[in-house]
């Protein structure tokens, strides 16, 4: 009788086991729990990171056409793609390499960097992962469109529903958004989340596809491929898949995609890295993201490196 009485203390264990069986057998329940618990998985920052910008009347050629001085630290690094362009390309420039010309079948294209103000970004779209979300959050570019989301990768950049549309509850994909709006400039920085999967080659294969598709969707836009921002040396040495050699290997390949006609390569790393080659320790907490106060370095770099054709 006493043993029987004690049985009530096993009820909880039974419930635990039963619910456990249900939990493991039913994927849908597991997903529901998961969805309830971490709805922000797609976006831990909780930040939609999206704004619909002004409808963009191009102002690309406006602004002072002054070429930024040769002392712009990022200047040199950003031309490395030039020699991959077929045709007799010549890159000129004094101490800093700041202008270039590319001759293709349809004539010669001359370009140079100019410094512009923020309105240059009014008809631009920024596409990227959490680093770009940081730019959206803290660079104060309120008229600029951002299609950025934490954890975004080349594999789902077109398919992830991350763009919120005013007055509409459901978000649409970047693909849909790019089909609806045309932009004059596309700033693209992506590639750190992918480092855990595949190789440089598999990544680049997808990356090229994405760039080609971007051109299809936005035939008139200048595409700025931004080098993946490095991580701090401390973070890089942690021993997991996130490391600077891997980032550099990808960047070297991304740079080769620049045709310097429609696609340009920009590398902000020299401005945000120290002499160990990683993000400046004081400028980042987690070794991956610039603190908000230092986002301006990046923004200013982009403003100093707007392409002007002449």
């Amino acid at each position, binding site marked *: 009788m006493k043993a029987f009485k004690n049985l009530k203390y096993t009820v909880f264990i039974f419930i635990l086991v039963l619910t456990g069986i249900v939990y493991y057998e039913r994927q849908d329940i597991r997903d529901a729990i998961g969805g309830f618990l971490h709805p922000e998985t797609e976006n831990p920052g*909780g930040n939609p990171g999206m704004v619909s910008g002004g409808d963009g009347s191009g102002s690309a050629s406006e602004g002072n056409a002054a070429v930024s001085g040769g002392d712009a630290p990022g200047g040199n690094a950003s031309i490395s793609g030039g020699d991959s362009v077929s045709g007799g390309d010549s890159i000129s420039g004094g101490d800093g390499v700041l202008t270039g010309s590319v001759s293709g079948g349809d004539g010669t294209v001359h370009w140079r960097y100019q410094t512009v103000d923020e309105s240059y970004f009014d008809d631009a779209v920024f596409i990227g992962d959490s680093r770009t979300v940081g730019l959206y959050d803290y660079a104060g570019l309120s008229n600029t469109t951002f299609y950025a989301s934490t954890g975004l990768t080349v594999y789902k950049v077109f398919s992830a529903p991350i763009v919120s549309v005013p007055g509409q509850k459901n978000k649409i994909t970047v693909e849909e958004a790019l089909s609806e709006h045309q932009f004059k400039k596309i700033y693209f920085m992506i590639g750190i989340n992918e480092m855990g999967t595949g190789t440089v080659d598999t990544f680049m294969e997808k990356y090229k596809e994405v760039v080609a598709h971007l051109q299809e969707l936005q035939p008139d836009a200048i595409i700025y491929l931004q080098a993946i921002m490095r991580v701090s040396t401390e973070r890089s040495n942690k021993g997991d898949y996130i490391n600077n050699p891997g980032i550099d290997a990808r960047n070297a390949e991304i740079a080769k995609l620049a045709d310097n006609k429609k696609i340009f390569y920009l590398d902000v790393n020299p401005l945000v890295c120290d002499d160990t080659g990683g993000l400046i320790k004081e400028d980042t907490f987690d070794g991956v993201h610039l603190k908000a106060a230092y986002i301006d370095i990046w923004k200013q770099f982009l403003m100093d490196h707007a392409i002007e054709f002449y």
Partner: protein
Amino acid sequence: MLGYYLTPAKAKNFVLLAGSLVFYTCGEPWYVLLLVMSVLLNFYSAKMIDRIKVQGDRRAVFLMTLFVDVGILAFFKLSPFMQKWMGGEIALPLGISFYTFQILSYLIDVYRREIPAEKSLISFATYAVMFPQISSGPIVYYSEISGALHGRRVTLKDLDSGLKTFVYGLGMKILVADRLAILWHELQTTGFVSISTPLAWLGAFSYSMQLYFDFYGYSLMAVGLGRMLGFKLPQNFNMPYMAKSIREFYRRWHMTLGRWFQKYIYIPLGGSRRGLAVTLRNLLIVWLLTSFWHGAGAHFFFWGLGLCLFIMLERIMDMGGVLSRSKVFGHLYVLFVVPLTWVCFAIPDLGDLRTYFGRLFGFVAGVNVKAGDFLQALQNYGLYLLVGVLLCTPLPKKLFERFKNNFFGMVILAILFWMCVDRIYSAGNNPFMYLRF
């Protein structure tokens, strides 16, 4: 675990000890030797202290052992400062602050002849390294579990009750504390200079709750596991945020540490019976030691000193009565002061600490502050903050006690358990899921 229940009562300590050592070795493959050494030293010293009749000799053995114990602890606490000439970083051994204090309490109690020395090495070692509480307490007195160490019957009732307590603590830690931790992590990633003043306050409150649920959750899990193993471990928290004075707060927060300092430092120094000046001196000593116990960083010093000043003020102005009679003011005072002290606790870099206070009180100008960051944080973490606030009140514990044996209460607990498993599982796939880029 199952093996533990199947082994006969006499061998239970041995199984538990072996399991705990394996557990510890998994976390700290080398420092387990230090732990074993500590246990052996104190076990045999205590035996000697117990046996020796000559007071002077007893004292010598006692002081020598004490010196070694405290010396090892102090060495590791100070090691961040000695890095330069030791070449390289030294990690703190898991749970050293907790197990050292637990062993010290035993040693002192034996010296004071409050308890006889333990005869069985296995029993003593089990007390010192028992896995539920070795990493973060509670700090148990030997006398509290010596009975259970020598003969305990684990009933189904204990198992049932312990499991429920464990799930309750697990939920608190995984579903609330770990969620709120993301907010704090975001503030750090953004950089304190770039957060708005309202967000800085929200961050301070959120961190206060995060720390509480993290620690309280761990303590509850330890108590629950202990119960499942047949031990009754002391409670570590008693609704601290319902306190009406800082003094009361620390009678409710990390109680097993507080009573340790009370018993072994504060009272022997004369406590509060020898006039105001001595009382204040004693408070200062206790709080300096408490800061040092947490770590030798300057921010811990500010944290402890700040608290000490408030407690002294309460003493001097004899505010205890006024505060405890007040209905609202005491609460407001505690909820204003305590989060500020936790900010000191949280931020090791003094420059960052200054910036944070600057943002709290507006004397440091913000750089690239995002408009509406406060509202966004509320939107993202509002649910967890609300649950957190509720959990600070006596209500959830009452509900837990009332419904834990009710069928629906058990179903809810079971669901909570699997929610935690889900979280741990997805975090296991990606340990820093919330750190994705």
